[in-house]
């Protein structure tokens, strides 16, 4: 019976893994094929990888785009995690009626589709450009500013704080730690998995963010990866092999972040803190 259940678990997970990986596999295979073969749906690895690489690196500045995206994504992730976890913690630990109302108001900001905010936001950054060009239109700062504080992450950290053992805070106070000290020295280290999850998601969202960087970044040397990929597919006769190669390369950093962070998801690790 037990063996049966075990086997079922593995089969179930393997089937799920197959469906998850299959399109990814397709993508990798396509990056080694000629464009005409990609459009025909060829599923075998081809011999065109180097040709595609040559074309890709000759036609676009992949390195610059990777660097821009990395800068934006790393800065966004670090800032967003700190700002949002402070707020999520603040809303839950120092809970009051007024703060609950504020929290609910902040949640409202998630509820409007971004496309509706683009024009007013652009006008605002147009104004900022006059006085503070360093964070105005066509700067990386402008690309990340609207994304470093999201109600989504605040909400996430608040819900995680609910699961946090409150006795630890009292213990910290007795030890004479300041309120901020408790947050940084007790809360943060014991919530590693929450931070890991938030880091993966935030990095990924920032890395893939498309609409806002598209409108606010103008110069080619500021281009991020999603914009570059969008350009690659834009010609009347797109080279799908090259596009897929760029996509594969673009996927590596997020997969890597996931890989590095997921070690925190190891079952049964919690005992050490509590």
């Amino acid at each position, binding site marked *: 019976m037990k063996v049966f259940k075990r086997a079922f678990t593995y089969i179930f997970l393997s089937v799920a893994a197959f469906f998850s990986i299959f399109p990814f596999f397709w993508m990798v295979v396509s990056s080694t094929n000629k464009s*005409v073969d990609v459009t025909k749906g060829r599923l075998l690895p081809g011999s065109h990888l180097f040709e595609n690489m040559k074309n890709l690196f000759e036609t676009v500045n992949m390195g610059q785009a990777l660097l821009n995206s990395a800068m934006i994504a790393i800065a966004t992730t670090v800032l967003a995690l700190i700002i949002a976890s402070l707020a999520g913690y603040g809303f839950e630990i120092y809970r009051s009626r007024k703060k609950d109302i504020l929290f609910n108001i902040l949640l409202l900001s998630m509820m409007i589709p971004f496309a509706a905010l683009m*024009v007013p936001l*652009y006008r605002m950054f*147009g104004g900022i450009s006059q006085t503070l060009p360093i964070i105005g239109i*066509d700067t990386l*700062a402008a690309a990340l500013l609207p994304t470093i504080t999201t109600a989504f992450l605040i909400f996430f950290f608040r819900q995680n704080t609910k699961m946090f053992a409150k006795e630890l805070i009292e213990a910290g106070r007795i030890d004479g730690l300041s309120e901020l000290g408790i947050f940084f*020295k007790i809360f943060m280290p014991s919530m590693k998995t929450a931070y890991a999850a938030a880091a993966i998601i935030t990095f990924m969202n920032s890395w893939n963010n498309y609409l806002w960087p598209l409108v606010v970044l103008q110069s*080619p040397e500021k281009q991020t990866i999603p914009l570059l990929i969008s*350009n690659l597919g834009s010609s009347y006769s797109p080279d799908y092999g090259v596009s897929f190669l760029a996509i594969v390369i673009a996927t590596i950093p997020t997969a890597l972040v996931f890989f590095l962070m997921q070690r925190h998801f190891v079952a049964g690790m919690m005992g050490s803190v509590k």
Partner: protein
Amino acid sequence: MRRIGLLLLISILLVACSETSDTKGNNDSNEITAWAWDPKFNIAALELAEKSYDGEEEVELKIIENAQDDIISKLNTGLGSGTMKGMPNIVLIEDYRAQSFLQSYPDVFYDLSDYLNAEDFADYKIEPTSLDGKMYGLPFDTGVTGLFIRTDILEEAGYTVEDFKDITWDEYIEMGKDIREKTGKHMLTLDFNDLGIIRVMAQSAGKWYLEEDGVTPDLANNEALKESFRIFKTLIDEDVAGIHTDWSQLLAGFNSGDVVSAVQGSWIIPSIKAEESQSGKWEVVPIPRLNLKESVSASNLGGSSFYVLNIDGKEKAAEFLKNTFGSNVEFYQDLMREVGAVGTFLPAAEGEAYQTEDAFFSGQKIYADLASWMEQVPPINYGIHTYSIEDILIVEMQNYFNGQDVDKVLESAQKQVESR
């Protein structure tokens, strides 16, 4: 805590530092920027133009590549917000959308009438690029259509290219059925979400979704549109046409040899040539016409033009366009040879490059042929609502396929457009 502080500092520095390098740059008064989308086509054309520019003033052209849809989002966001900050000097806009931009953002585009001569360009390009008698756009590429067809498959089925010259769509369908039976291949593929072929058919009869004023919807009782709908449905029902749901599948169709022909704009040529093994097996003939007396065997699909924005550097940008795309016959010969782009500047067609025989197309002088068809394309005022009306028509096309009467569905579309 220290580690976090350090991380914070680094990330702020990272972003701040990246700005210091090029905060100046833009003060350079010789620099003009241009937005375009295809590196092998219109971007290559701009690069070539910069090389051949020989005007008095010095011009440094900075070309910025963005996908076409992206340019539209960027322009609408920028212009809609009323800030001209970050907008380019020159921008390429598809002809179907031009009126929408010209009318939505008055005073944003610079009048080029003094720089260009309207008679120099194909007739059908003037109407979409002008407003109130002023020329705002420099007509660039042509989407003149052709029936691209595989000669070897025709032969196999007992036909020749001659059989497909000067025919109606019904004749095309009849032969297509026969070829389908003999070879098992579709004649072309269609996309239910993209009514480009309907636009091609309608324009071949000098008709559009709107009346000549570019505003009044002309859907119900539009004979050309009704015919186009009927042909679209017959093509599918008789299994002469297959279905594609993605651009890559359209290309895969003819590249793999499963599809015999394509009715597309001249810009499809590089995609056809991508399958080198089919060299010498293609030719291009005029497209079939509708069974209406006003319909001709020439039409247009897509195509775009250059616009100058009314911001600093506008005279320089206009001067640049005039000197290159607006007057230089030699430049167009190079454009043809090096980029393979067919412009709509009429004097250029007299040049020798247009007489080149293309080995891929069985030695046919395809560019000379396309240029001569271009002059027959009926001029149309596309008006401002091409794509919103088309989305309504896409829905009505579904209803038509589901058995509703063609008059009914067009009437329903008419009502929906009028009610807005």
